[in-house]
């Protein structure tokens, strides 16, 4: 065998071993999934766990099918999804906007510092009742919950990354006579893009928290309402179904943001 063929052969072996590992990982992931759900089903059937509290996958599935057929799941899911997406976008945009203001004026940044610290330490969901009274028990107040929970942390994280942009990039622009708007647009914002995107990832999770808590409080529709309603009438199949749907859609949203991240910052440093 010539050395070149040998290298080719070794490379193929390496690829094979990578693929083999990948298959094993997938296999075990599937095993864990099956064990959890069949274990749950079995334990529930055999009354090892209280079926009234923990329900069972078969019951959840049956409820899922009925709720799909009568369309009620889609309605609730639609509400919660749109509230989360709006809250998430609002939180991220407003947070980045506030960060831009702080960067723009060091004086405002100094003045607002203690307030930011207080607001950041404050558990935002505690503001829920006030929001609902102020904005009404509606879509708006739930979106506000989804947004408010991520605004302050976005502001702080993005502002920090604005400040950490290498001053030499700013110097380059200044030697060309750039004004502050131009510096922001050409250097500060694009250089902080990776940070903004990574706060997006955090904000996806936060917005779900805000929206679900908001729906707990408003209690009229949505997946959060399904949970609180199921809890009150002791229908835990409903609670479980809602939890699983939330898990699936929160994951999908997270994956979408990750996809966006890959698309947007492929050329960055």
């Amino acid at each position, binding site marked *: 065998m010539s050395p070149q063929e040998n290298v080719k052969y070794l490379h193929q072996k390496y690829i094979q071993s990578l693929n083999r590992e990948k298959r094993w990982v997938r296999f075990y992931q599937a095993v864990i999934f099956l064990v959890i759900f069949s274990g749950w089903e079995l334990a529930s059937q055999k009354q090892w766990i209280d079926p009234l509290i923990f329900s069972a996958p078969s019951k959840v599935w049956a409820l899922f099918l009925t709720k799909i057929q009568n369309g009620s799941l889609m309605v609730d899911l639609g509400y919660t999804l749109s509230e989360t997406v709006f809250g998430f976008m609002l939180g991220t945009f407003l947070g980045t906007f506030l960060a831009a203001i702080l960067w723009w004026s060091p004086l405002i940044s100094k003045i607002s510092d203690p307030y930011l610290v207080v607001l950041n330490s404050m558990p935002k969901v505690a503001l829920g009742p006030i929001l609902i009274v102020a904005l009404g028990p509606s879509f708006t107040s739930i979106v506000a919950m989804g947004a408010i929970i991520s605004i302050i942390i976005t502001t702080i994280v993005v502002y920090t990354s604005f400040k950490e942009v290498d001053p030499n990039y700013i110097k*380059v622009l200044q030697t*060309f006579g750039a004004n502050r708007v*131009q510096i922001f647009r050409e250097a500060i914002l*694009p*250089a902080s893009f990776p940070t903004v995107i990574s706060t997006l990832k955090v904000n996806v999770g936060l917005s779900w928290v805000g929206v679900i808590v908001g729906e707990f409080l408003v209690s009229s529709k949505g997946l959060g309402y399904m949970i609180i309603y199921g809890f009150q009438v002791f229908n835990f199949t409903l609670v479980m179904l809602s939890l699983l749907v939330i898990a699936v859609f929160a994951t999908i949203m997270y994956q979408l943001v990750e996809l966006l991240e890959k698309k947007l910052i492929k050329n*960055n*440093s």
Partner: protein
Amino acid sequence: MDFLKADHIHHTYFTKTTAVTALSDVSLEVEEGEFVSFLGPSGCGKTTLLSIIAGLFEPTDGRVTLEGKRIETAENEIGYMLQQDYLFPWKTIEENIFLGLKIGKSLSQDKKSYALELLDKMGLKGVESQFPKQLSGGMRQRVALVRTLATEPKLLMLDEPFSALDYQTKLKLEDLVSSTLKSFGKTAILVTHDIGEAISMSDRIFLFSARPGQLHKTFVIPKEIREETPFNARNHEAYPAIFQKIWKELESLEPPGER
């Protein structure tokens, strides 16, 4: 009238606890088309002086004039090159070299083709749509030079532009920069702590002493060295003598006990 004139420049940096004087009573003149170097130990305020001449901030006292006008009003007449290329990694090479024009809102078709022509002259044809990270250090610094020259500045500031490069690349770039600037007849100020670089590239060398930064001495480089390219200047017979002269002067600036 002098092309560039720095008149009794003082500069002090203030912090809460200290007031450090970086420059004390520095006056100098540079003629049009001249290439001068600022040489000196670290802490002699070379970069501070360069920033003041570039109009990036105002000195505590004194004034800088370019063709008789105060430097603050002379926008876009000064180009500045830093230690590293500082090309914007999220912009293509083309977007990078158009940056100065875009900032100055003078991005016309003429200027664009001028910038691309410069890129071609630097031996960088065909990289327009690539990103900076795809280029080597020397190529990137050449792109940075194109970016600086694209706005057609009257005065060029070079703040140790070769210090981050390997030796071979540095020598080649010195030749390239020197011949480019000569062919355009640009006035340039080079900040460096490499004596050889200062001698081989400049017409005059301003030697600074540190703490506080003061103009210590001015050396005029002999004509025969000036006419050579930087690489050949290093091998010129007159080179060792002037090197020794500047070296001794630099040594005498070191406070006793150091080194």
